[in-house]
């Protein structure tokens, strides 16, 4: 009995310590919010450790957790889009006020943060790019997690890069203009 407990504790320490950074990083980069990333990580790890059967190797555990985090992040994204749409409606009602406020904020920023640029990407492109760059997964693994073909992963990653480059270029133009 004691041995069983120890094994569970050892397994927990090993898997949690090794996988937490990558899972948190993926959750943070997809959602752009530390608090949300923390919630997603907590839920994903609890779900995993409540499973009766542990997965045979740590890589499979990593894919499993990333898949859960990715699925849960979609709900958050939908909520964020709804809120964004509500803000857009508000902007239409009071255009002058919002415009002047936006200009004021942007003038203070000299350089756009990477996370802000990622947030500007559509969810579908952001997820695959994050899994490539921050989880270091290959196209096959990404395809399996997201549920799309390898060819589709290739296209989405390229488009995400293209869009990010454009976002950064626009930022440079804006800063030089400012």
């Amino acid at each position, binding site marked *: 009995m004691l041995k069983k*407990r120890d094994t*569970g*504790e050892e397994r*927990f320490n090993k898997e*949690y*310590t090794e996988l*937490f*950074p990558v899972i*948190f*990083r993926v959750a*943070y980069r997809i959602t752009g919010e*530390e608090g949300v*990333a*923390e919630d997603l*990580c*907590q839920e994903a*790890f*609890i779900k995993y*450790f*409540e499973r009766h059967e542990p997965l045979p190797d740590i890589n499979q555990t990593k894919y499993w957790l990333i898949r859960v985090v990715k699925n849960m992040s979609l709900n958050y994204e939908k909520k964020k889009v709804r809120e964004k749409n509500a803000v857009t409606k508000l902007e239409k009602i009071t255009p002058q006020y919002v415009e002047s406020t936006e200009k004021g904020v942007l003038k203070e920023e000299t350089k756009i*943060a*990477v*996370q802000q640029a*990622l947030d500007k990407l559509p969810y579908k492109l952001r997820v695959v790019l994050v899994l*490539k*760059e*921050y989880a270091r997964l*290959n*196209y096959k693994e990404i395809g399996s997690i997201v549920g799309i073909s*390898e060819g589709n992963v*290739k*296209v989405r*990653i*390229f488009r995400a*890069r*293209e869009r*990010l*480059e454009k976002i*950064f270029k626009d930022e440079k133009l804006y800063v030089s203009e400012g």
Partner: protein
Amino acid sequence: MCPKDEIISAYLDGEVESPWAEKLKIHISTCKKCAQRLADMQNLRSRLLDEAEPDFGPALQRLRRRVYFHSVGQGSTVPAQTPRELPFWKRKVNLPMPAAVALSFMLFLLFASFFFFMGQQNNIAMAKREPASYKSQPVQVTVPINGMQVDNLEVLLKLLNNKDFSQEVLMQLPKDSQFSVFGEPEIEKISTDRQGE
């Protein structure tokens, strides 16, 4: 001819298979435009990875405690909550399978022997009881010599025993009588004794 940017992006990710990867490598080494495209994508990657991330150390510790107690800790040395005492009739007992089999076999033997002995006892009791009831069966017999009427088999037997003569007597037993032998058959014994006279 230059490859599409999409192919260069896949090459950066190591997703172009041989021999296309080698051919692409040679092409990029000679084509300034493609080399620049690859360099741009590499710079983008560096920018994504080089930016300082939020310190997730505190979150790691906070969640470690929460996740551990919520899932693993429940069955561990530090339980998340003390188990509630169950009422007597809802308590469960863990019993090894061989012990359970042996126990059920012993219970079976106990019940089987109990019923067996009970059956034996009944048989003995019935054997003892049957002649009495047999004797007390009401009969209607008319003895032709003295014109006596006897309504009890026991009386009839005594009468026959005491009288110093022999007489054919026809006895009709009740129709619902069951002819099973219990104990010593007294009528048969009497007739045997008579033959000896």
